[in-house]
């Protein structure tokens, strides 16, 4: 049960985390998966089957945009994702919701402390 709870909790924050990773630089899929894994110490391990539907949904909603990079001698052709202005606004709103929810959870879970 703990694993399922952990999965549901993490899933709820993924949109926000991906937008945050795109805040300063455009990135490609493998890069997003690697960075998320490294920066969370394997705490958030995303697979392509979850990442790409998420990116497609963010793009359809205008929160990210994509462009195809060029294939070079050293690198394969990659699709780069970048956050849009709408995405930046949404990121701010999501983080605010997250913080408010965190306060609510703490208010209940820490009532005896």
């Amino acid at each position, binding site marked *: 049960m703990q694993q399922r709870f952990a999965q549901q909790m993490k899933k709820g924050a993924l949109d926000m985390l991906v937008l945050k990773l795109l805040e300063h630089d455009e990135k*490609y899929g*493998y*890069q997003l998966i690697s960075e998320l894994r490294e920066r969370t110490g394997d705490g958030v391990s995303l697979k*392509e*089957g979850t990442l790409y*539907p998420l990116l*497609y949904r963010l793009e359809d909603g205008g929160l990210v945009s994509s462009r195809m990079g060029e294939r070079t001698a050293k*690198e*394969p*052709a990659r699709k780069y994702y970048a956050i849009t202005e709408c995405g930046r606004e949404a990121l701010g709103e999501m983080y605010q919701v997250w913080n408010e929810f965190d306060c609510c959870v703490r208010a209940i879970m820490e009532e005896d402390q």
Partner: protein
Amino acid sequence: MNQQSYTKMVKKRLMCSKPRRDEFVRDLESDIASALAAGESWEQVEQRMGEPYLVAQEFNDNLSQEEIAAWKNASD
């Protein structure tokens, strides 16, 4: 299993429109190429990504309701 067979098996099990299916397969192939370019072996990539049917299942489970509805309508 080689890379071509792997992506073919994933593609067969995707429940979405053809453009989206082709897009995901291209993205999957690009990630595989990036992983190989980063020094991973194909065996490591295959193990990390998991069985093709699980990749497809996870993708299908995470599709938006609109995409699922559009695919079902097109299939009827």
